């Protein structure tokens, strides 16, 4: 499976939320959401973070709520 890859960085493919059995993502939890916010402030895509689609949806909603409440930035640079 490893084979020759163009990208040397191999990201883990397990959904963090499934692994920790989280069923509700709280928008007030800045520390948790911060993991999915790269420097620019965008929402980290699933293909990089490995989050499953169910949790990505919950996560995106939570991040958007947090942005509205100025817990997370819309743009950061």
């Amino acid at each position: 499976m490893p084979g020759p890859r163009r990208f040397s960085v191999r990201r883990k493919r397990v959904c963090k939320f499934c692994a920790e059995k989280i069923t509700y993502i709280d928008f007030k939890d800045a520390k948790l959401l911060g993991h999915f916010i790269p420097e620019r402030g965008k929402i980290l895509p699933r293909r990089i973070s490995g989050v499953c689609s169910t949790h990505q949806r919950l996560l995106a909603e939570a991040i958007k709520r947090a942005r509205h409440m100025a817990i997370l930035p819309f743009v950061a640079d």
Partner: protein
Amino acid sequence: MRNYEVVFVAAPTMTGDELDGFIGHIQSVVESKNGKIVKIENWGKKSLAYKIKRFREGYYVVLTIEGDGGTIAEVERRFRVTDTIMRFISVRIDEDLKRSEKIKAARRKKAPKQEFTPSSAQNSEPAPAAESDR
């Protein structure tokens, strides 16, 4: 009855007493509408992720309210007419929590069975410590 989580950000120019007064005022509003404030969580002054009305920080308060739509509508109206409230959000949480409970219950039922996914065979045993239970 529904459960709501209401978060608001108040201007840092307010004093602590004014903020407490305002929370008390909201409490009376909720009670007049047959609602109930289950929990008040005052985070104190926190820095904002971006400037709002030229302020860099604000008071964060989290209220857990039990009531119906009318209760929340009135609370939101009060927030809108109060100049010192910069941001607010109200989220209905009972359905999400119910869904979350349901998943957990289903999982508990399933738990006695052996997990047999080959990829998780070696790392399924040391279960990561559950940080939050939500």
